């Protein structure tokens, strides 16, 4: 009896051993997290989402690239503020950062330091030129920064409508490029998004 049960256990163990030997261990530390597709269309709620950010940034960047490609020399541009006129929290800097990244990668525009990064820029310039720590020939000199020729600014607004069945949210993102010296608006574009969900 004992021998029979031992042999059964031995069989079970060797079978388990065989199975685990066939299965490939994955390079993961298991848990409940699942990595998704960052480019997928997000339909979780009708608030401002990743797909809206991506589609706005792409449309604006491509439209700006088309304009930049038509200019004789690559324009030097700075990004000013994009106002959030909606009632939601929207990080408009995230949108403009993506627009700037895509435009820089496209090679159709150059960017000057914007207001948000100016403190870091002046700190670094002051450190290099005035601290006395850097070799004269390699240190950056004050008074040589290039001024932007164009300024990009805009706003995002929304209209929310509700009835007993449906909530409808309409976003409008407007962007324009102004000639800094002349004060004229050289380019403008808009992106509209509508999201509808059951109430």
């Amino acid at each position, binding site marked *: 009896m004992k021998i029979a049960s031992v042999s059964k256990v031995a069989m079970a163990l060797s079978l388990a051993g065989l199975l685990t030997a066939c299965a490939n261990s994955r390079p993961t530390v298991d848990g409940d997290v699942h990595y998704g597709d960052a*480019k*997928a*269309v997000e339909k979780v709620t009708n608030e401002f989402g990743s*797909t809206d950010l991506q589609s706005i940034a*792409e449309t604006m960047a491509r439209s700006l690239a*088309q304009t930049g*490609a038509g200019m004789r020399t690559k324009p030097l541009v700075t990004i000013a503020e994009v106002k959030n006129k909606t009632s939601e929290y929207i990080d408009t800097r995230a949108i403009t950062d993506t627009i700037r990244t895509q435009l820089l*990668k496209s090679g159709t525009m150059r960017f000057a330091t914007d207001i948000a990064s100016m403190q870091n820029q002046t700190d670094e310039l002051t450190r290099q030129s005035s601290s006395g720590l850097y070799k004269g020939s390699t240190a950056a000199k004050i008074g040589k920064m290039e001024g932007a020729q164009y300024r990009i600014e805009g706003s995002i607004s929304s209209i929310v409508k509700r009835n007993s069945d449906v909530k409808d949210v309409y976003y409008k993102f407007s962007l324009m490029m102004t000639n800094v010296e002349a004060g004229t608006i050289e380019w403008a574009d808009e992106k509209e998004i509508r999201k509808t969900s059951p109430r």
Partner: protein
Amino acid sequence: MSTIRSVLLSAVLGMALALAPPALAQTIASKVDYVGTSRYLTVSGLKAREVNGLLNLYVEITNSDNDDQEGYYRIDWVDDAGFPAWEEEAWKPIVLHGNQKRTLQIIAPSRKAQDFKIVFSGERNWSGPTGPRE
């Protein structure tokens, strides 16, 4: 050079348009990758031209159903050597009303993008490989 290119491109696609529908469908089909077999939405027209060195696409999508249908698209851009010219784009949703035709105007991300593939996913697909399951 770019004028000649745009003339040639429109001539090729224009010729395709002048041919019988099956041949046109074949020309467009070579530029579209369907994810699944889209049941109601199809890419029915395609034009391309170069504007200031950037490829501009005009993609016509048709809805064969009477109801609203949603689809998702993105473009895979390729340079003249056949290598990817841009990162993976985000999927963009598109809604067509019953029997509507819509034309998407798409601008290439950079001058490196010399060729393209439209990747299209209809929200409603055929259940079998090419047609409805009997």
